[in-house]
């Protein structure tokens, strides 16, 4: 009890005393877990949205589509089959071209009665259900056309006012909603509801289809049921096709085929960047944590107790960050995975797999960034911890000889770099993570510019672009934070060495340039590796669309990243170089 109180007290007080550390920790781990859980939860979110829409609209488990002018025979035969729980009256539908707001799109027009159907009752989300002379537009399609209640759509040369917007789970979301096209290749399209009379009038001489929506007693066995029932004898002479709910769900999931890898890969990259953030934070905190370890040991705490105290804070923050990341993932996923807005959004609890993955990532990130420094602090000799001894540097005569001919700033920068190889690795990893995402984004933009996209897929591409841009921006921000932290940590740890160089005649400008050089040198290989990995990853996830960004784009992006690294490093370096060198010498050896 006493130990628990002690640990809790120390964790709480340290967090209160330095809330900035805790905020940075939370931010870094949360963005990584949120991005990853968003990517992993995407499929679940589509399934949950579809299930909710299916339930709210009495969605069919299977739809039979026939070109027979009279579908009554087929309907009667199906209705007598075992396993049918409910069926709707056949719906007349035809495929046509619709104009609205200067846009043209293919769409099925279904004829419906005002009375609710037994199966597939579209849920009106705004306006009213069909009435003579008025059209109800599927919500995803309405969004693509840019129409709302009160606007007009033109079908077969006649304008109809839009009286309502509705969602339905009978077909996949826009642009795969047009099931009235009959045999042959199917074009992408939307879905509009008229009254049956208006639909037949609008169809004119065009041949249509009849849709027979069915509810089954065993929806999960829909494929077996279909293969058993839809024999050539039942089909008759007319063309009959079937669409089951599992196919609908699979096509809906296809809408996030571009976004999901961006989120999952981005999540892992953010995890790598977060590790760098925590490692940099640990480096900045090292002196303080060492002292805390020494104080605790001096009053009788063993290494285990010290390690628990130093890690408990990180573990608590990790748990909080994992919970926040999962919550963000669960809340944002529904809106993110349904670019056409054709489903009812629902924020459900994440699956056990997503929770496990997010917690694993959070713990990995936290431990990778903090376990080493905490254990080092716990094992440090009490006397040394209390005295903050000088960091013993290995003498490297070759380094001294090689760098002797370099300009002053580069000379100091190279020596700082060589003495802290771990610091160089952190910088390279951070810049590489940024470079991967920037290159992937440039590849995506190149593909948009060079490969023709079907107009109907614009929404999917737009959402993929938004996701890529979002993940890239978050990665860039985290890496910018890393650069500042790493620059700060380098300046703090080398403050005495830099003060000595200033005493010996180096100007503050040369010191700033030296710290920038120490960051830029490892950033270059990170940048090159990141660009290469970004291109390879884009090719891997887009095998049919393997493009490479123009060289000028890549060079411009690389220069921008390096300039940002230099600028962000110069900031803490400048702050440190402003204080008098004598004061730095008095702060004790580091």
């Amino acid at each position, binding site marked *: *009890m*006493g*130990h628990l*109180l*002690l640990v809790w*007290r*120390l964790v709480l*007080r*340290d967090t*209160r*005393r330095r809330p900035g550390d805790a905020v940075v920790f939370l931010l870094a781990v949360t963005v990584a877990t949120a991005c990853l859980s968003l990517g992993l939860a995407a499929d679940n979110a589509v399934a949950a949205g579809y299930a909710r829409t299916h339930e709210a609209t009495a969605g069919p488990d299977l739809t039979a589509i026939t070109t027979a002018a009279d579908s009554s025979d087929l309907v009667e035969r199906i209705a007598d089959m075992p396993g049918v729980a409910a069926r709707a009256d056949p719906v007349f539908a035809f495929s046509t071209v619709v104009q609205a707001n200067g846009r043209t799109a293919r769409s099925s027009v279904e004829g419906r009665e005002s009375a609710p159907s037994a199966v597939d009752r579209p849920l009106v989300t705004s306006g009213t259900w069909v009435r003579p002379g008025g059209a109800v537009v599927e919500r995803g399609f309405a969004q693509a056309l840019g129409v709302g209640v009160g606007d007009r759509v033109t079908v077969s040369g006649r304008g109809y006012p839009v009286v309502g917007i509705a969602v339905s789970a009978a077909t996949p979301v826009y642009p795969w909603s047009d099931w009235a096209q009959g045999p042959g290749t199917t074009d992408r399209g939307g879905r509009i509801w008229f009254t049956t009379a208006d639909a037949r009038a609008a169809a004119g001489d065009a041949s249509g289809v009849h849709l027979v929506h069915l509810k089954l007693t065993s929806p999960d066995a829909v494929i077996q049921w279909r293969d058993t029932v839809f024999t050539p004898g039942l089909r008759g002479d007319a063309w009959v096709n079937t669409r089951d709910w599992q196919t609908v769900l699979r096509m809906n999931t296809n809408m996030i085929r571009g976004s999901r890898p961006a989120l999952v890969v981005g999540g892992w990259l953010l995890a790598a960047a977060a590790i760098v953030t925590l490692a940099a934070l640990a480096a900045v905190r090292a002196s303080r944590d060492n002292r*805390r370890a*020494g*104080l*605790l*040991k*001096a*009053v*009788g*705490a*063993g*290494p*285990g*107790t010290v390690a628990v105290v130093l890690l408990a804070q990180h573990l608590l923050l990790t748990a909080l960050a994992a919970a926040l990341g999962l919550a963000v993932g669960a809340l944002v996923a529904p809106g993110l995975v349904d670019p056409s807005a054709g489903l009812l959004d629902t924020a459900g609890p994440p699956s056990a797999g997503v929770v496990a993955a997010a917690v694993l990532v959070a713990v990995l990130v936290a431990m990778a960034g903090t376990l080493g420094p905490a254990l080092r602090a716990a094992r440090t*000799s*009490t*006397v040394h911890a*209390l005295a903050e001894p000088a960091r013993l540097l290995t003498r490297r005569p070759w380094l001294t000889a090689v760098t002797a001919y370099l300009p002053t700033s580069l000379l100091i920068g190279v020596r700082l770099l060589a003495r802290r190889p771990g610091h160089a690795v952190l910088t390279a990893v951070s810049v590489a993570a940024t470079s991967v995402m920037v290159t992937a984004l440039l590849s995506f933009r190149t593909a948009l510019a060079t490969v023709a996209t079907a107009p109907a897929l614009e929404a999917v591409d737009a959402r993929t672009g938004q996701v890529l841009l979002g993940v890239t921006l978050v990665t860039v921000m985290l890496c910018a934070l890393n650069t500042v932290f790493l620059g700060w940590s380098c300046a703090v740890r080398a403050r005495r060495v830099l003060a000595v160089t200033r005493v010996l005649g180096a100007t503050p400008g040369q010191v700033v340039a030296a710290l920038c050089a120490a960051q830029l040198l490892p950033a270059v290989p990170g940048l090159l590796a990141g660009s290469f990995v970004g291109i390879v990853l884009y090719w891997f996830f887009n095998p049919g669309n393997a493009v490479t960004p123009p060289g000028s784009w890549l060079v411009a992006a690389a220069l921008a990243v390096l300039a940002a690294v230099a600028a962000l490093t110069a900031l803490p370096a400048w702050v440190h170089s402003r204080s008098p060198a004598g004061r730095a010498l008095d702060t004790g050896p580091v």
Partner: protein
Amino acid sequence: MSRDGLRVRGRSQRRGAKDGPDAGPADRHPGEAAGTALRAVGLSRTYGRGENLVRAVDGVDLDVPAGQTFAVTGPSGCGKSTLLQLFGGLDRPTEGEVWLGGRRVDHLGERALARLRRRAVGFVFQSFHLMDELTAAENVELPALLAGASPRTARRRAAGLLDRVGVADRARHLPSKLSGGQRQRVAIARALVNEPLVVLADEPTGNLDSAATHDVLRLFDELRAAGQTLVVVTHDERVAATADRVVSLRDGALADDIRLGGDGGTGLGTLLGWED
């Protein structure tokens, strides 16, 4: 602040020998029977090797009887603080033995040393070394909680000690809000909270002004009167003069050993002119 308040329980001196973990018969030193709180036998601590070898402590033999105040003096770099660290298990000797309460402790593992520190040793540092984020009371409770005391017991002990060292009204203040003297008094209360066998003080007045130094010396005087074994490393002749015995170190080796009076040194009152 009462003298009774700083009275040291007699059993604390026995406890150090009896309660220590892993203490087998082979670890018992004959000196235990004679009431020796602390003993160093051929104690050495060296750093580096070859030409760079530094003998911080060089073959020191010492006995600190229980209940005595023992001062270690000498010029800077003579090994005073290192000797204190070896006594308290903060550092390990290169050669020799350290016996605490009749138990050999120089070969103990880090965990056993931690247990030893929390039960048998109290430290007072020149730089106070209080936890910045904890209040004065919480700093004093810290060793008690580490030693397994219940939160209520730790709180009660801390309140009593802070009252007795005269900073009860500062119990809820952070160290940054305390003066140097107040911080050192809190540190002394912290050192006493587990009723240790021996209190080791490293330049306890080194960072204090005259008034605060007087306060600390008064506390030490009360500790001495209460029978607390106290080892003080100091530059300050006034502090050394309050001890029962003063040893001087030079280049890590014992240079001088002076016993000040049979009944316990000059005493603060005499030193400051309060008593004849």
